[in-house]
C-alpha cells in the first residue's frame, strides 16, 4: 500500500510502488489537473509539489512520494485565488491551457523562494516548462504581476 497526502487529504492506494506519481494522481485518485506531456521529465506539464518542491510526477515513483505531502494544481488554492492564478487570469495567459497547471506549479516555487524575480530568474525557473502555444511572454508578465500582487512577500504556500 502506498499512502499519499494529496492536497491535505490522505489516500491509501493499492498500486505498484514503481508507478509514477502522475498516473496515481490522474488514474487512481482522479485528479486530472496534472498533465501528461512527455513522460521523461522534459516538458513540465506534470509538475506537482512534493514537500514543497516542484517535482515532475511522470518520473517520480509513488515509492518516493509514499507518506509525503503532495500539492497538485487543484490544491494550490481553494478559490483559484493564489496570486499566480489571479495573475494568469488577469494577463489572459493560456491558449490551449494544457501546460499551465505545470507552469503555475513551477512558478509557485519560484515566487516562494524569490518574491520579486527578474526576467533572468524567471528563465532560470521556468525553462523546464514547455508551452507549445508559445504563451511565454505572458507567463513572464503574469509572474511579475503575481509578485506585485503578493507585495514581494515570499510566504506563498
Amino acid at each position, binding site marked *: 500500500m502506498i499512502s499519499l497526502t494529496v492536497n491535505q487529504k490522505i489516500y491509501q492506494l493499492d498500486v505498484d510502488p514503481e508507478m509514477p506519481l502522475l498516473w496515481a494522481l490522474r488514474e487512481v485518485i482522479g485528479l486530472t489537473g496534472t*498533465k501528461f506531456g512527455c513522460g521523461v521529465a522534459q516538458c513540465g506539464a506534470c509538475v506537482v509539489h512534493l514537500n514543497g518542491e516542484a517535482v515532475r510526477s511522470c518520473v517520480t515513483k509513488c515509492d518516493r512520494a509514499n507518506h509525503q505531502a503532495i500539492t497538485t494544481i487543484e490544491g494550490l488554492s481553494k478559490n483559484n485565488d493564489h496570486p499566480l492564478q489571479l495573475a494568469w487570469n488577469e494577463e*489572459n495567459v493560456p491558449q490551449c491551457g494544457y501546460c499551465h497547471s505545470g507552469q503555475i506549479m513551477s512558478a509557485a516555487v519560484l515566487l516562494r523562494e524569490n518574491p520579486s524575480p527578474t526576467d533572468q530568474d524567471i528563465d532560470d525557473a521556468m525553462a523546464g516548462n514547455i508551452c507549445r502555444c508559445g504563451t511565454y511572454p505572458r507567463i513572464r508578465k503574469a509572474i511579475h504581476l503575481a509578485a506585485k500582487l503578493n507585495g514581494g512577500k515570499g510566504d506563498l504556500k
Partner: protein
Amino acid sequence: MEDISRRHFIASATTAGLALWLGLTSEGNLYKALDLASVNFSPFILIEASGQITLFNTKPEIGQGTFQSFPALIAEELEVSLDEVTIKQTNGEYQFGNAQRSGGSASIRNSYLPMRKIGAAAREVLIKAAAKTWNVLESECFAQRGSIIHALTERKLSYGALIQEAAKLDLPENPKLKDPKYFKILGKMSKRPDIPLKTNGSAEFGIDAIVPGMLYAVVYRSPVIGGTLKSFDATEVMKIPGVVKVGTAERIVGVYNYTGVAIIATSYWIANKAKEKLITHWDNNGFDKFNTLDYEAHLRVLAKQAGIVEKSVGNVDDVNLPPNGYLEAFYETPIIAHHALEPLNCTAQVKKDKVEIWTSTQVSSAVTGKGAGDMHVQIGFAPENITLHSLFVGGGFGRRLSMDYIVEAVNVAKLVEQPVKVIWSREDCTQHGPFRPMTFSKLKGGLSAEGKLISFEHKVISPSLQQSRDNSFDPSKVDLAMMEGISEQAYEIPNMRNSYVRADLHIPVSPWRSVTSSTVSFAQESFIDELAYKAKKDPMDFRLELLQKPSDAKKVLLKLKELSQWYTKLPKGSGKGVAVWEFFAGLGGQVVEVTCHKDKTITIDRVIAVIDLGEVVNPDNVINQMEGSVIMGLGAVTKGGINFVNGKVAEHNFYDSPLLRVNEIPKIEVHILTDGGKVKGVGEPGLPPFAPALANAIFAASGKRFRKLPFKLIL
C-alpha cells in the same frame, strides 16, 4: 436517421420549461422555434423562460480563443455580456451542422457577420415582443443586459419573460447590426471564460475524460512507417498483472491503413510498460530502405523536371533580360511534427451498434459523420449511433484535423466491453505522423535594367497533401495545397509562372499550422529579398515598388515600415529583415531585427508583427496568438525537423525533437490592422512571414543567406 439524431440532441439539451431557440437553417436563413424537434435548423441561442441564456460554440477550443470569440459575436448584438450567459461547446450533434470544426483560421472570418446577424435578429424580435406587450413603439425600447427596457417608463422585461410573445413574431430577415462605435465586446480586450478553468486544473481536456469502469490502452505500431503486421506474441504481456487484453486495431490516416497491436490494461503506465514484452513481426514492404537524406537528394533531382503549371501570367520564356539580370535559387524545408502538448488520445465505449467517444478534436462534426470525411464508415457505425464528447483541445495545429487516432481508439474499444482510453506516448506522437511535408523550391527571377522585377518563377517540389489524404486525387494535376499562397501575393509582376513537381512518398502528411505557407513563404519571401539586393534596392522599397495598386498587403508593409522605422540605420553587425504573406487564412507581415555577434551567434533583438484582420473580436487574444505564432515559427526555423533513418523516425521526444523554451524567446511587438475590408483569420497568418523575415535580417546583418530550414542562430 436525421430525426433520431436530432431527438438525441434534444434529449441531451432538455430545458426546464418553455424555451426559445434561434439559429440558422442549413440554407443560412434565420430561424427560431419553441420546439426544437419540430424543425431542422441549427440553434445558436437558447433563451429559457427562467431567463437563462445559452450560446452555443460550434468551434472546438484549441487555444485559439473561440470559446470567447465565437459567442462574443452573438452576445454583442444580443446585448448580453458573456458573464450573463452559459457557453456550451457543441459535440458534433447533427443539429449543429457540418461546420463544427476549427481549422484554416476560419472560425471568425466565416462567422463574423452570420453570428452577429443571429444575435441582432434575436434582439429585434425581443424588442418587438416587448413593445407589443406594453403596447408602445419599438423605437422607445432598447435591449440591455438580457432585458428589454422601455425608455420612457423604465419598464423592464427579461428576455426569458418575452420568449412566448417573441415566438409568435416573425424574425427580421435583415436585422440591423450595431454600429461598431457602440460595441461593448467586439474589438475590446476581453477575458476568455475558459481561462479560469485552465488555472486550477478544472478544464477537461480529451485526455482527462473519466468514464466509470474505464480501461487504458496503448498501441504498438510498426516502427517502420508502412510496415504491415505479420504476427505478434503476447504471451509474456498477458502475464503482467493489470493487462486485460491484447489485440489488433486498425488505424486509417488518409489513404493509409495501418494495423497495430493494442495492449489494454488497468492503467496507461502498465499498458505502456508492457510494450517491452510484446513480440511483433512486421513486413517492412521495403520501406526500411527509406532515408531522409536520400529523399532530399531525390527531390533535388526532381527539381530538374518542368512540373505542372499552376499559374502563368504573361510569358516568362519571352522576357528580354539585360545581361546579369537573372537570378536563381534553391530552398529546402524539412518534415516536421505538430507536437501538440496534449498527447493524442481518445476514449471510446462500444455497445453493440453504438459508440460513445470522448476526445479532443478539431473536427467534431466529422467525427459524428455530419461533417466532411467518412470516419463513421471507417469505424462501421451509423452517424446517429455515434455520440461525441468534444472536450478542450490541448493543442491542434492541424494534427487534430486527422481522425486516425479516433478510428484506432474505437477499434481498440471493440476488443472489450468496457470503455477504453487510448493514449499515445510522446514517442508515438513524434514518430507516427501524419507530418507536415517538406517543400523544396526552385526560384528564378528576372530584373529589368532599372532593377524592376519583370519575371518570376516558383517551382515547388514536394510530396502531396491531397494524395496522402484522398484516394480520388488525380496525380496528373497540381496539388493546390502545396502551392498555397504562391500565386496569391499582391506583387505586380508582369510575367510569372508557378509550377508543381509531385514526389511520391509513402508517409502520411497533413496540414501543420499555416499549412504550406509555413514553408513556401520562406523560399519566396527570402528570394524576393535576394532579388532586391541583386537590383541594388532596399528590400522594403523593392517590395513597395511591386505594389503600385492599393492592397491590404501594401497596407501591412507600410505599417511595418512605419513601426520599424525602417530607414533608421542599426549598428554594424545588426540588420532588419521584412516579409509579408497572404494566403487563404489571412495576411500578416513581420520585421525582424537581429544582431550577429563576434562569436558568430545571432540574437533576435525584436520582432514586429503586423496582422491585417479587417475586423477584430478580441485584440488581446489576437496578440496572444501572434506571439505564439512567432514563437512557433522560430521553433520551426531553429529546431530540427523529423528525419527518417532506415524507414524509422530518428527523433523520439522533446530531448531530440525540441521545442522553444521561455529562455529562447525574442521580444515581440504586435500590431493589428482593423480598418475594415475582408475579415481575415487570426490563428495562422503570424507564422509564414517569420522565417523569411528572420533570414532576410540575418542577410542584412551579415551577408549570409540561409536557404535551408532548419538552421541554428549561428553564422
